[in-house]
Protein backbone atom coordinates (compact mmCIF):
# COMPACT_ATOMS: atom_id res chain seq x y z
CA UNK A 1 0.00 0.00 0.00
CA UNK A 2 1.26 3.43 -0.91
CA UNK A 3 2.11 5.73 1.99
CA UNK A 4 1.88 9.48 1.76
CA UNK A 5 1.66 12.68 3.67
CA UNK A 6 -2.09 12.39 4.17
CA UNK A 7 -1.81 9.10 5.96
CA UNK A 8 0.85 10.65 8.12
CA UNK A 9 -1.42 13.44 9.35
CA UNK A 10 -4.65 11.42 9.45
CA UNK A 11 -4.08 10.20 13.02
CA UNK A 12 -3.96 12.43 16.15
CA UNK A 13 -1.08 10.48 17.73
CA UNK A 14 0.96 10.81 14.55
CA UNK A 15 0.23 14.54 14.42
CA UNK A 16 1.44 14.80 18.03
CA UNK A 17 4.62 12.86 17.21
CA UNK A 18 5.28 15.18 14.26
CA UNK A 19 4.81 18.14 16.60
CA UNK A 20 7.46 16.75 18.96
CA UNK A 21 9.92 15.91 16.19
CA UNK A 22 9.52 19.32 14.58
CA UNK A 23 11.16 20.73 17.72
CA UNK A 24 14.00 18.21 18.04
CA UNK A 25 15.20 14.77 16.90
CA UNK A 26 14.25 12.07 19.42
CA UNK A 27 14.86 8.41 20.20
CA UNK A 28 11.88 6.02 20.08
CA UNK A 29 11.95 5.73 23.89
CA UNK A 30 11.85 9.48 24.39
CA UNK A 31 8.89 9.73 21.98
CA UNK A 32 6.99 6.90 23.69
CA UNK A 33 7.32 8.63 27.08
CA UNK A 34 5.00 11.37 25.81
CA UNK A 35 2.11 8.99 25.20
CA UNK A 36 -0.08 6.73 27.27
CA UNK A 37 -0.21 4.11 24.51
CA UNK A 38 2.11 1.11 24.59
CA UNK A 39 5.62 1.46 23.17
CA UNK A 40 4.59 -0.98 20.49
CA UNK A 41 1.65 1.21 19.40
CA UNK A 42 3.86 4.30 19.32
CA UNK A 43 6.54 2.55 17.32
CA UNK A 44 3.90 1.45 14.81
CA UNK A 45 2.96 5.11 14.33
CA UNK A 46 6.62 6.05 13.94
CA UNK A 47 6.99 3.33 11.33
CA UNK A 48 4.11 4.78 9.31
CA UNK A 49 5.64 8.25 9.54
CA UNK A 50 8.94 6.84 8.24
CA UNK A 51 7.14 5.08 5.38
CA UNK A 52 5.39 8.36 4.55
CA UNK A 53 8.89 9.93 4.43
CA UNK A 54 7.82 12.72 6.72
CA UNK A 55 10.19 11.35 9.36
CA UNK A 56 13.72 10.07 8.77
CA UNK A 57 15.73 7.81 11.04
CA UNK A 58 19.38 8.23 11.75
CA UNK A 59 21.73 5.99 13.68
CA UNK A 60 23.89 7.86 16.20
CA UNK A 61 26.15 5.43 18.08
CA UNK A 62 23.84 2.75 19.44
CA UNK A 63 20.77 4.97 19.41
CA UNK A 64 18.32 5.58 16.62
CA UNK A 65 17.07 9.15 16.33
CA UNK A 66 14.01 10.24 14.40
CA UNK A 67 14.09 13.55 12.50
CA UNK A 68 11.25 15.59 11.04
CA UNK A 69 11.48 15.99 7.24
CA UNK A 70 9.90 19.37 6.39
CA UNK A 71 10.31 18.93 2.62
CA UNK A 72 7.60 16.30 2.58
CA UNK A 73 5.08 18.66 4.14
CA UNK A 74 5.70 21.10 1.30
CA UNK A 75 3.78 18.87 -1.11
CA UNK A 76 0.57 20.09 0.45
CA UNK A 77 1.67 23.73 0.31
CA UNK A 78 2.55 23.41 -3.37
CA UNK A 79 -0.88 22.07 -4.13
CA UNK A 80 -2.58 24.76 -2.05
CA UNK A 81 -0.58 27.37 -3.94
CA UNK A 82 -1.96 26.11 -7.22
CA UNK A 83 -5.44 25.92 -5.71
CA UNK A 84 -5.13 29.52 -4.52
CA UNK A 85 -4.00 30.76 -7.94
CA UNK A 86 -6.92 29.08 -9.67
CA UNK A 87 -9.44 30.65 -7.31
CA UNK A 88 -7.79 34.07 -7.37
CA UNK A 89 -7.96 34.01 -11.17
CA UNK A 90 -11.62 33.08 -11.08
CA UNK A 91 -12.51 35.65 -8.46
CA UNK A 92 -10.75 38.46 -10.35
CA UNK A 93 -12.92 37.60 -13.34
CA UNK A 94 -15.97 37.64 -11.09
CA UNK A 95 -14.95 41.11 -9.82
CA UNK A 96 -14.91 42.40 -13.39
CA UNK A 97 -18.26 40.84 -14.10
CA UNK A 98 -19.85 42.32 -10.96
CA UNK A 99 -18.59 45.79 -11.87
CA UNK A 100 -20.60 45.68 -15.07
CA UNK A 101 -23.67 43.98 -13.68
Amino acid at each position, binding site marked *: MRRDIFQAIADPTRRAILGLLALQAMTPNAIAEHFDSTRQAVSKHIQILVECEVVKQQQTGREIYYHFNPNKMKEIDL*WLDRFRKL*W*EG*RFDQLDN*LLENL
Partner: protein
Amino acid sequence: MSTKTEITKDLANKKINVTREFAAPLEKVWKAWTDVSLLEQWWAPKPWKAVSKSYDFSEGGFWLYSMVGPNGETAWCRVNFKTIVPQQSFTSTALFCDENGVVNPDFPPMHWLVTFHPVGASTRVVAELTFDSEADLEKIVAMGFEEGFTMALGNLDEILEA
Protein backbone atom coordinates in the same frame (compact mmCIF):
# COMPACT_ATOMS: atom_id res chain seq x y z
CA MET B 1 -10.47 46.46 -7.18
CA SER B 2 -9.16 43.12 -6.06
CA THR B 3 -9.46 41.82 -2.52
CA LYS B 4 -7.52 38.98 -1.05
CA THR B 5 -8.64 35.39 -1.28
CA GLU B 6 -8.22 33.73 2.09
CA ILE B 7 -7.57 30.02 2.18
CA THR B 8 -7.45 28.03 5.40
CA LYS B 9 -6.79 24.32 5.56
CA ASP B 10 -7.98 21.82 8.08
CA LEU B 11 -6.52 18.77 6.43
CA ALA B 12 -7.04 16.53 9.44
CA ASN B 13 -10.77 17.02 8.86
CA LYS B 14 -10.39 16.84 5.05
CA LYS B 15 -11.58 20.41 4.78
CA ILE B 16 -10.42 23.57 2.99
CA ASN B 17 -12.07 27.00 3.31
CA VAL B 18 -11.95 29.68 0.65
CA THR B 19 -13.12 33.17 1.70
CA ARG B 20 -13.40 36.21 -0.53
CA GLU B 21 -15.17 39.56 -0.38
CA PHE B 22 -16.79 41.12 -3.43
CA ALA B 23 -17.60 44.83 -3.84
CA ALA B 24 -21.22 44.23 -4.82
CA PRO B 25 -24.50 43.70 -3.01
CA LEU B 26 -25.49 40.17 -2.08
CA GLU B 27 -28.25 39.83 -4.72
CA LYS B 28 -25.75 40.48 -7.50
CA VAL B 29 -23.12 38.14 -6.12
CA TRP B 30 -25.70 35.41 -5.61
CA LYS B 31 -26.86 35.90 -9.18
CA ALA B 32 -23.30 35.67 -10.55
CA TRP B 33 -22.86 32.33 -8.76
CA THR B 34 -26.21 30.83 -9.69
CA ASP B 35 -27.33 32.29 -13.05
CA VAL B 36 -25.59 30.14 -15.63
CA SER B 37 -25.17 32.89 -18.24
CA LEU B 38 -23.16 34.84 -15.66
CA LEU B 39 -21.45 31.82 -14.08
CA GLU B 40 -20.05 30.80 -17.47
CA GLN B 41 -18.37 34.19 -17.79
CA TRP B 42 -16.08 33.80 -14.79
CA TRP B 43 -15.91 30.10 -13.89
CA ALA B 44 -13.25 29.04 -16.39
CA PRO B 45 -9.74 30.41 -15.94
CA LYS B 46 -8.78 32.26 -19.13
CA PRO B 47 -8.27 31.32 -21.95
CA TRP B 48 -10.48 28.36 -21.13
CA LYS B 49 -14.23 28.53 -21.48
CA ALA B 50 -16.99 26.92 -19.50
CA VAL B 51 -19.65 25.71 -21.94
CA SER B 52 -22.91 24.47 -20.46
CA LYS B 53 -24.85 21.57 -21.88
CA SER B 54 -27.60 21.77 -19.27
CA TYR B 55 -28.25 23.72 -16.11
CA ASP B 56 -30.86 23.23 -13.42
CA PHE B 57 -30.22 25.21 -10.26
CA SER B 58 -32.66 23.43 -7.97
CA GLU B 59 -32.36 20.86 -5.21
CA GLY B 60 -31.67 17.59 -7.01
CA GLY B 61 -30.78 19.44 -10.22
CA PHE B 62 -27.34 19.63 -11.80
CA TRP B 63 -25.04 21.63 -14.03
CA LEU B 64 -23.41 19.70 -16.86
CA TYR B 65 -20.64 21.65 -18.56
CA SER B 66 -17.34 21.26 -20.28
CA MET B 67 -14.16 23.19 -19.82
CA VAL B 68 -12.94 23.95 -23.32
CA GLY B 69 -9.32 24.89 -23.95
CA PRO B 70 -7.78 27.08 -26.65
CA ASN B 71 -6.89 24.00 -28.69
CA GLY B 72 -10.33 22.46 -28.33
CA GLU B 73 -9.45 20.21 -25.36
CA THR B 74 -12.51 19.41 -23.32
CA ALA B 75 -13.08 18.13 -19.81
CA TRP B 76 -16.64 17.36 -18.78
CA CYS B 77 -17.76 18.26 -15.29
CA ARG B 78 -20.96 17.90 -13.37
CA VAL B 79 -22.13 19.80 -10.30
CA ASN B 80 -25.02 18.23 -8.38
CA PHE B 81 -27.02 20.75 -6.37
CA LYS B 82 -28.19 19.36 -3.06
CA THR B 83 -29.66 22.07 -0.86
CA ILE B 84 -30.43 25.67 -1.73
CA VAL B 85 -31.38 28.53 0.62
CA PRO B 86 -31.93 31.47 -1.77
CA GLN B 87 -29.65 34.50 -1.13
CA GLN B 88 -27.90 32.58 1.68
CA SER B 89 -26.24 29.30 0.80
CA PHE B 90 -26.14 26.20 -1.35
CA THR B 91 -24.45 22.82 -1.14
CA SER B 92 -23.21 20.87 -4.13
CA THR B 93 -20.98 18.00 -5.19
CA ALA B 94 -18.51 18.45 -8.04
CA LEU B 95 -17.68 15.44 -10.19
CA PHE B 96 -15.87 14.49 -13.36
CA CYS B 97 -18.05 12.86 -16.02
CA ASP B 98 -18.53 12.22 -19.72
CA GLU B 99 -20.57 14.35 -22.13
CA ASN B 100 -23.75 12.57 -21.05
CA GLY B 101 -23.15 13.35 -17.40
CA VAL B 102 -22.18 9.77 -16.53
CA VAL B 103 -19.86 10.15 -13.53
CA ASN B 104 -16.29 8.89 -13.79
CA PRO B 105 -15.68 7.02 -10.51
CA ASP B 106 -11.89 7.37 -10.81
CA PHE B 107 -12.10 10.98 -9.74
CA PRO B 108 -12.96 11.72 -6.11
CA PRO B 109 -16.11 13.80 -5.45
CA MET B 110 -15.63 17.21 -3.85
CA HIS B 111 -18.38 18.63 -1.66
CA TRP B 112 -19.03 22.34 -1.47
CA LEU B 113 -20.93 24.48 1.00
CA VAL B 114 -21.06 28.04 -0.33
CA THR B 115 -22.45 30.75 1.97
CA PHE B 116 -23.12 34.42 1.21
CA HIS B 117 -22.84 37.11 3.89
CA PRO B 118 -23.66 40.83 3.49
CA VAL B 119 -20.82 43.05 4.81
CA GLY B 120 -21.94 46.65 4.44
CA ALA B 121 -22.27 47.27 0.71
CA SER B 122 -20.08 44.24 -0.04
CA THR B 123 -20.63 40.51 0.11
CA ARG B 124 -18.43 37.90 1.71
CA VAL B 125 -18.51 34.45 0.15
CA VAL B 126 -17.24 31.47 2.13
CA ALA B 127 -16.77 28.24 0.21
CA GLU B 128 -16.09 25.20 2.35
CA LEU B 129 -14.67 22.23 0.49
CA THR B 130 -14.75 18.74 2.00
CA PHE B 131 -13.65 15.34 0.76
CA ASP B 132 -15.07 11.92 1.58
CA SER B 133 -11.78 10.54 2.82
CA GLU B 134 -8.11 11.28 3.31
CA ALA B 135 -7.51 9.02 0.36
CA ASP B 136 -9.67 11.26 -1.85
CA LEU B 137 -7.93 14.43 -0.75
CA GLU B 138 -4.59 12.73 -1.21
CA LYS B 139 -5.60 11.62 -4.68
CA ILE B 140 -6.58 15.11 -5.70
CA VAL B 141 -3.30 16.51 -4.42
CA ALA B 142 -1.27 13.69 -5.95
CA MET B 143 -2.85 14.30 -9.33
CA GLY B 144 -2.15 17.96 -8.89
CA PHE B 145 -5.52 19.20 -9.95
CA GLU B 146 -8.32 21.11 -8.41
CA GLU B 147 -11.90 20.02 -8.95
CA GLY B 148 -10.69 17.31 -11.22
CA PHE B 149 -9.81 19.40 -14.20
CA THR B 150 -6.48 21.09 -13.56
CA MET B 151 -4.85 17.99 -14.98
CA ALA B 152 -6.94 18.24 -18.11
CA LEU B 153 -6.12 21.90 -18.38
CA GLY B 154 -2.45 20.97 -18.23
CA ASN B 155 -0.91 24.36 -18.70
CA LEU B 156 -3.08 26.08 -16.13
CA ASP B 157 -0.09 26.98 -13.97
CA GLU B 158 1.54 28.85 -16.81
CA ILE B 159 -1.70 30.59 -17.64
CA LEU B 160 -2.19 31.71 -14.10
CA GLU B 161 1.40 32.75 -13.58
CA ALA B 162 1.52 34.71 -16.84
